[in-house]
């Protein structure tokens, strides 16, 4: 009786059979879900990485420029196109309101992405695979991607970063 103090002896009343069954079931499901996340770290292939370095916008920009100059193959709509070798470090810069560079990758190969922002928070959203990660200034987020499909992919920004936010779109091309 939600508005009145409970009746005498309420604390010692036995829990009904069906309520007990439900609570037990819910508890088991909760425990399974908890362990499942740990199991996925061992057997699953999609885990948000745990390698992050502290950096500064200046430092990261310098590293990214060196990377772009080293593997640059051309330009697309004013943005450099870069084709890094498999198993190498890849630098992706987020800044108002563009992603740099355009990346050309090979299917089935691993790439160590370093992702950071030069100004505000941005959101790395890879479409149409729909994988989403946060991008911070001052943090070098390391994610090792292995593309499992070919084609052209868009990186759209999905964290508000000012008035031009909706124009912030980048590109990844995955070849056979």
């Amino acid at each position, binding site marked *: 009786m939600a508005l009145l103090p409970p009746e005498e002896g309420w604390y010692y009343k036995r829990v009904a059979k069906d309520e007990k069954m439900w609570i037990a079931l*819910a508890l088991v499901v909760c425990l399974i879900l908890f362990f499942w996340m740990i199991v996925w770290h061992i057997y699953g292939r999609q885990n948000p990485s745990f390698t992050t370095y502290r950096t500064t916008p200046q430092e990261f920009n310098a590293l990214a420029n060196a990377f772009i100059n080293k593997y640059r193959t051309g330009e697309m709509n004013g943005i450099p196109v870069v084709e890094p070798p498999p198993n190498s470090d890849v630098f992706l810069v987020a800044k108002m309101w563009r992603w740099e560079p355009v990346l050309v990758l090979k299917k089935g190969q691993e790439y160590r992405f370093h992702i950071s922002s030069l100004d505000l928070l941005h959101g790395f959203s890879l479409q149409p695979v729909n994988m989403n990660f946060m991008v*911070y200034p001052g943090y070098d987020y390391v994610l090792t991607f292995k593309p499992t499909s070919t084609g052209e992919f868009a990186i759209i920004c999905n964290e508000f970063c000012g008035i031009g936010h909706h124009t912030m779109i980048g590109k990844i091309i995955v070849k056979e």
Partner: protein
Amino acid sequence: MFRTCDITGLKVDLRAERLIQLNAVMAVVSLLVGVIAALLLVLTRWQVVHLLPVEWYYRILTLHGLNALIFWIIFFEVAGLYFGSTVVLNSRMSSPKFGWLAFILMVLGFLLVNYTILTGSADVLMTSYAPLQASPIYYLGIILFAVGALIGVFLFFANLLIARKERTYGDSLPLFTFGLVAAAIIATLTLATGAIIYIPTLLWSLGIIKSIDAGVYKLVWWGLGHSSQQINVTAMIAVWYLGAFLTVGGASINEKVSRFAFVFYVIGINVASAHHLLVDPGPSPAWKVFNTSYIMYIAVLASMIHAFAVPSAVESAQRRRGFTKGLFDWLKNAPWGNPAFSAVFLSIIIFGFIGGVTGVVNGMEQTNIIVHNTLSIPGHFKGTVVGGTTLAFMGATYYLIPLIFRKKIAFFGLAKAQPWVFGLGIAVLAVSMYILGAFGVPRRHYDITFSGGPFTYTFNPAVDFFWVLFAIGGITAVIGALMWILIVVFSVFLGQPVRGPQDMQLQIASPPPPAKEHHGFEAPGTLTLTLLFMGVFLVFLLLNWGWLAAMWEVK
């Protein structure tokens, strides 16, 4: 200073009553601002209309978030806290003066925040992630509002102490007030976290502190941001129990279980805020898994317990009234013409099936990759805080108007339909947003055709269909909310006075006859419904994990 209510027999402190009324009125004003903003946003995001220009879209989005998610709910909750600690306990208000101070601070905060947003000096959205910066007045407004609310929470505790000392109720608190205690404890922690993050942010916007670390800001901010939604959940569930009691005389089949579930919320729910950082660069996987799951599942378990306890309270009362045929006779013969009943029931369904199910997927470390910052996230909280909390609070006002404002409910026929219009609208909106997010449509985004960008991207053509559903659901929900505001404003300011029990349009159910000896289940209908829920939940989880496994590999 007291009047005795001729309907409930409760003693009402007139000074508390005045404060309850004022806070409730401000809650409605905030909701009205939030709802108008919502309509503009729906008509902008639906690209067929694309109503607002870009700077106004983000401005109105900021306005919507703060008014609909913060001001409306917290004003209402402060009213609820005063109600639960004075009227329900037959007790007096500890310090009406501080009640006024709290109210004035909150109104001042409300005005400053809305002023800065509308004048364009705080286009930072509700989360105001540093290093995105707003005018210092904006942060000051938030701080004033939070301090005011915190004073309100302290007054609630003071009221409880007085009631205890003066022995105005029996030995144990009524369950409704007990639930509010849980909400108030969570609120204290939450608002303190708010002060910890907004004070340095204010100093930073004034130039006194040089820089704010984006990661630290986001970590602490969510201690405020998500925990404040947990206050809402806890208060909403207290209202569910209240609704079951008022509309059918339902009481928990085991009060101990319900009370423990509230205690679980206090223990587990605050750290659940960590699930906003699941795909962030800072925290380690161990930290993420521990905080969002091991601890959060204490809160999930609590929600599952309430999911059984509230409907079974209704079922058991109805069965004792003789609706014992089959599994669902009790539900068929429930008082569906009572808008408070339909509001609570729809709130339970929407919160559970939409908000709860999606919340667990969003809160798991790996599946968060799919949904983070897509439209799925606001889709999820349309299911929890709008279809759940807001709808439950709307239902509660149908009792609040005659009992506290002493006015008859205007347009009673409209009131009967209102929870359905609002509930269905929100349900359609929430589901379509969740699906749009699953297709990768981002939240907080002005133009998903990316016009002006260096590249372009076209979402799966199926999204067009869900955008239409989004618009239909959104507009329906706005109509439902405006219906409620119309009813409330008309009743309170122009309605006919309630002179006694004969003017009560809603029944206050008398307690059902005592239970007969019986064997077997107490609430087989509820058990069936909760098992159905569990089935839906597990299927939804499997779909998400299967889908995750098909993505690019990442580690």
